[in-house]
């Protein structure tokens, strides 16, 4: 006679069984990083053979020239990711796990949207791309207002946003988001890079007048330039806000003529910059002598496309740029060759940043072994890379801002070709433009949307 109970569990036995069960259940995670990633994340491609990326660029509006070039770069990046063409920067990007067979074995497709350079239109367009086109990632844009708006939508929707051309400090400052990443440099970096050159070229006793595009980018650009120039000893005569897309800036330029200022800082971009700079030149500002010095114009953010639009007005004017097609490093040359062969013109800095962002996202997915956004984000955070045209670069984990060298450029007085519009005056090392991420505030937010 036994008093044995068939189900005689001791407390120790229960604990052992529980631990063993837990271990068994956890086993896949030792082999697959993403074993428990939510399989129902937004636009999970599942077993589909193709994934779609969303390219949301300004196809109309004041920044549409940049938008067109961004789209060209995106198409080229998709081509290279799918193993077509000469591979471009895929051959120079390191460390890279991209193989030219799509991403995670899936062919890369894309859908496009028009931001119209307006925040509300950009958000609506991004929403359509996410909800109707089922895109896994959104990229593009040529305005910080748009970038901030779309970035916050992407955080809500749980879709990674690889920003295009956005230069406001806010994008990776007070408005930063866990799902948003910026490869492009920012207004603070422009100020830090330009400062020493301005001092060398124009001296320490100057009076600056700012005309500023009235939105987030303009405000932070003005703030950064003002801080930099005042640090040099310059005085700020006035800071005047102008509406985006104003077209005729004459009413804002005429007050400059008799303000006592001897430097005009144009915190404008795209068509606005082309118009304001051309009109400033028409009003004779560059021929003026004020306070015994030549009147100077500074355009803190330059691009070759703008230089093309502004024509002769740009010659001799100082500014900064994220990248220039004349750079001689292996990555830049590979990209220019590939882009030029495809489109008959070199890429702009907007095109460059969009191309790089697409490759970086694809590489992060490969590294993570999944499209699950929190894992992709973790792969991008703190990622150090090279061979993409700006030397050694790092995606800082704390604010998702890329840190790399910044170029100070001048409108070319004697262009050797139709594209040779900017000369690199100085390459400012990354260490000179770095800053504590806390100075601009903001919170990244959670990994899980």
């Amino acid at each position, binding site marked *: 006679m036994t008093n044995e109970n068939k189900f005689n569990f001791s407390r120790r036995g229960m604990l052992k069984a529980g631990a063993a069960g837990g271990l068994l259940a956890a086993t896949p995670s030792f082999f697959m990083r993403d074993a428990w990633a939510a399989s129902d994340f937004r636009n999970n491609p599942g077993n589909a053979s193709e994934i779609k990326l969303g390219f949301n660029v300004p196809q109309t509006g004041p920044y549409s020239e940049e938008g067109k070039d961004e789209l060209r770069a995106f198409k080229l990046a998709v081509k290279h990711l799918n193993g077509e063409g000469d591979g471009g920067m895929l051959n120079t990007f390191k460390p890279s796990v991209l193989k030219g067979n799509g991403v995670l074995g899936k062919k890369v497709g894309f859908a496009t949207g028009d931001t119209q350079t307006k925040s509300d239109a950009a958000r609506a367009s991004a929403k359509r791309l996410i909800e109707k086109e089922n895109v896994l990632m959104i990229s593009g844009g040529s305005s910080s207002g748009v970038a901030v708006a779309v970035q916050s939508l992407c955080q809500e929707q749980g879709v990674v946003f690889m920003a295009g051309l956005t230069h406001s400090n806010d994008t990776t400052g007070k408005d930063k988001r866990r799902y948003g990443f910026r490869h492009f440099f920012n207004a603070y970096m422009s100020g830090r890079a330009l400062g020493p050159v301005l001092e060398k070229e124009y001296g320490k006793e100057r009076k600056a007048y700012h005309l500023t595009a009235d939105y987030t980018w303009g405000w932070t650009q003005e703030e950064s330039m003002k801080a930099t120039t005042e640090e040099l000893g310059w005085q700020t005569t006035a800071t005047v806000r102008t509406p985006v897309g104003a077209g005729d800036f004459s009413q804002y330029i005429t007050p400059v003529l008799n303000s006592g200022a001897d430097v005009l800082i144009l915190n404008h971009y795209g068509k606005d910059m082309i118009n304001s700079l051309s009109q400033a030149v*028409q009003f004779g500002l560059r021929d003026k002598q004020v306070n015994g010095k030549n009147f100077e114009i500074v355009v803190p953010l330059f691009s070759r496309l703008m230089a093309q639009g502004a024509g002769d007005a740009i010659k001799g004017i100082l500014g900064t740029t994220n990248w220039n097609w004349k750079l001689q490093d292996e990555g830049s040359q590979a990209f220019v060759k590939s882009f030029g062969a495809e489109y008959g013109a070199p890429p702009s800095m907007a095109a460059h940043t969009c191309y790089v962002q697409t490759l970086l996202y694809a590489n992060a997915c490969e590294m993570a072994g999944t499209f699950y956004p929190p894992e992709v984000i973790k792969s991008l955070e703190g990622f150090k890379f090279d061979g993409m045209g700006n030397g050694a670069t790092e995606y800082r984990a704390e604010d998702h801002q890329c840190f790399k060298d910044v170029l100070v450029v001048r409108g070319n007085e004697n262009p050797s070709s139709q594209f040779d519009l900017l000369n690199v005056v100085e390459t400012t090392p990354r260490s000179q433009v770095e800053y504590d991420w806390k100075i601009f505030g903001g919170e990244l937010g959670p990994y899980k949307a």
Partner: protein
Amino acid sequence: MDAVFLQILNGLDKGAAYALIALGLTLVFGTLGIVNFAHGALFMLGAFCAVTFNKMLLISTKILDPTVTLFKAYKEKPYLEIWFPDVGPVLVDYSVPLSILLAIPVMLLIGFILERGLIKHFYSRPHADQILVTFGLAIVIQELIKAVFGANPIPQGAPDILAGSAAVGSWIGLGENVVYPWWRLIYLSFSGIIIFGVFAFLQFTTYGMVVRAGMRDRETVGLLGINIQKRFTIVFSLATAVAGLAGVMYTPILPPDYHMGMDFLVLSFVVVVVGGMGSLGGAVLAGFLLGIVQSFASMTEVKAILPGIDQIIIYLVAVIILLVLPRGLMGRAGVMDD
């Protein structure tokens, strides 16, 4: 003083564009009784006459650019410069003023077709119907231009000789530092000539006299055996041409895009209402007045006290004027009073 003088010039310049558009609007309203919301689109069509003319001059062949070595790049060389190396570049340089030659017949024809084909059917219809149909017409024109030329602005340069600034300050003893762009001075003078021409045409010609009589009493003029309808068709074409010419000459100041007409239309209607519906003199006066007011509102000193005032000043002034003078500056009793 220098700043005030420059802002006056600036205001006159802006006002000239408003006045030219408002003049055409008032002419059509005063004669035909039509509230033409497509008038801004006609201004835009004029600007695109300049663009078209420039594109015609620049029809090019592609030549390999040997200075670019990383890839095959091509330069565009206009046939005009190949065939006529001396005259070709000069024609391209002067394309904006020369495009007037294209714009005048094209705009007159467009005006004639619009009036005969569409507008005349709405003479006896309520103003609401006229507004709807002309607004619809404006959208159609806009979309056509967008489809053909794209959505982006297309810069047009002034001739090189007029690309710089004139030392206007030294002309009136204010010093050589007071300068103003040549092309803007030309636009101002051009507007003055057009406005004077329209007034002279209406005031000093028999044709104009009949039109003015028709504006007062269409029925009586008809009973005298004069085909007033035919004259009104010509008036509509004339108003179209005035808007078109204003558009052509404005292109070096503001690169034209498909939306520029709508941007100007809203302000021009404010100008017409402030000037007084149907009053040609009122339209011109209000155009220049509001241009100057807007210009002064953009001054740093003003904006320091009232930030953003430059964006609303025109509407603010319009409200004040209409509160004090409900018929506008030079409005007549009985016009649009109902």
